């Protein structure tokens, strides 16, 4: 079985070899008709766009919902916020992601009419973002509850309000603790973004299904797509590990880094 990577230099209209296969990638030249490589890059862009928007939504909502779940049960407002955030987490993590995507695309817009004009890119990002936010919320809650209770008590003793103690004492510590599971969650989001093909976002999975049909070069196409997914997920991993390193408080959070061992 030999690989024929030349398929990526063919144009997507008639399968002829294009003039600028790689130079078009860097904007040095322009193909009159796009090649499969051009299309692959565009598809990759869509994958990153869906994952990026989804991650933004997930991080914001996840941090908010996770924090709300840990509020002290002192006031009735707090008790309601805890109930709402718990319902949020249970709702979005108990429904399969593909079903949620279809709900957002086919079902919810038929009740909430303004959503009909929203492009499928937004709908699928919302679906992915809400799904992942439920998981991130649980990690945020775990991070907050992992802190010694003395931290909250000390913040209260200093005269900080609940909001202030979260802002200045609890969250800065808790969010640092949960960076490793957040890394996994962010990488998962890149991979989960493949469900977007089902609602007509022209991302990598849709590219793979369509291009292998047109070219009969399934092995090459799927290898390229696999490589790009792996590369994207690995890039997220590296970025997160940098963030982890930069935001570390020496001596406070246990690390397997040898330089901190002494």
């Amino acid at each position, binding site marked *: *079985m030999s690989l024929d990577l030349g398929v990526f230099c063919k144009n*997507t*209209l*008639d*399968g002829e070899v294009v003039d600028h296969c790689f130079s078009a990638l860097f904007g040095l030249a322009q193909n009159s*008709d796009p090649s499969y490589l051009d299309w692959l890059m565009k598809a990759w862009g869509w994958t990153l766009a869906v994952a990026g928007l989804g991650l933004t939504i997930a991080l914001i909502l996840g941090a908010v919902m996770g924090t709300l779940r840990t509020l002290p049960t002192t006031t009735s407002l707090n008790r309601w916020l805890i109930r709402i955030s718990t319902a949020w987490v249970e709702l979005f993590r108990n429904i399969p992601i593909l079903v949620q995507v279809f709900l957002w695309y*086919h079902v919810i817009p*038929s009740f909430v009419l303004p959503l*009909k004009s929203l492009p*499928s890119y937004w709908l699928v990002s919302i679906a992915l973002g809400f799904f992942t936010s439920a998981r991130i919320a649980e990690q945020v809650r775990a991070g907050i509850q992992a802190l010694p209770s003395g931290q909250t008590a000390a913040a209260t003793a200093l005269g900080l309000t609940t909001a202030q103690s979260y802002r200045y004492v609890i969250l800065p510590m808790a969010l640092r603790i949960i960076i490793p599971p957040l890394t996994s969650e962010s990488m998962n989001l890149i991979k989960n973004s493949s469900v977007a*093909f*089902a609602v*007509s976002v*022209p991302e990598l999975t*849709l590219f793979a*299904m*369509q291009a*292998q*049909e*047109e*070219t*009969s070069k*399934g*092995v090459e196409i799927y290898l390229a797509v696999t490589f790009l997914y792996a590369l994207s997920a690995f890039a997220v991993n590296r970025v997160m590990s940098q963030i982890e390193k930069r935001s570390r408080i020496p001596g406070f959070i246990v690390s397997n880094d040898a330089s901190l061992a002494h």
Partner: protein
Amino acid sequence: MKKNLLVAAMLGLGLIASVQANTLDKIKSSSAVTMGVRESSGALSYTVGDGKYAGYHVEICQRVLGDVQKQLKLKALDIKYQAVTSQNRLPLVANGTVDIECGSTTNNATRQKDVAFAVTTYVEEVRIAVKANSGITSLAQLNGKKVATTTGTTSVQLLRKHERATGVNFDEVFGKDHADSFLLLESGRADAFVMDGSILAGNIANSKNPKDYKIVGEVLATEPIAIMVPKNDPEFKAAVNAAIAKIVANGKMPGLWNQYVFRFRCFL
């Protein structure tokens, strides 16, 4: 599920080593043959549930295999049905998992590198389906509109070519299968659905209200559809072609056509 895993594993193996065997010998020694069929390919090949399949191509294949059985002087021939998809049908025929594929496969030069085709038994026209009250009657009117088609079909590339050749600019939306594409048209997310005429007609016929839809406009492409057999096996291909020729010579073909295809064609 287990069956799917098995197919996936076979697919993987097949990609590594393409098995080349004499299909007639294989059928004779095992008294069994595997027929590739589709779950829902319009009138040509569809499931009737319970692991049973029917359709214009399926019945032609059953008759062909009957002739093969006679030619090989087999007392009994066990026909195994293997459901295939647009994605796996070529590899499965190329690696010998499926001996004869009776679905709705377009015969073209790219595919002939991997497999062979029997004589053309069906000619498909790619058409446009719209809502009857939309007032759209041709491709030119789709400028700026949303056009649905199904991922993994030749229609996607065809639309791209038309867009380039005619300068008509439309947004493509991709359904993950034909039913999904039709849902896009039904729910108003797409203004038109471009696909093989028989598939459009089948979806319209099965919709809640078939009168709401129309197949309109010019024929965008004409494609020869044929039964797919392994490459480099002239004996098996000749046996299949001879059996098809016999059905035609006996005057049985129009009957099959009416039985399966005509009821769909009413909508065209």
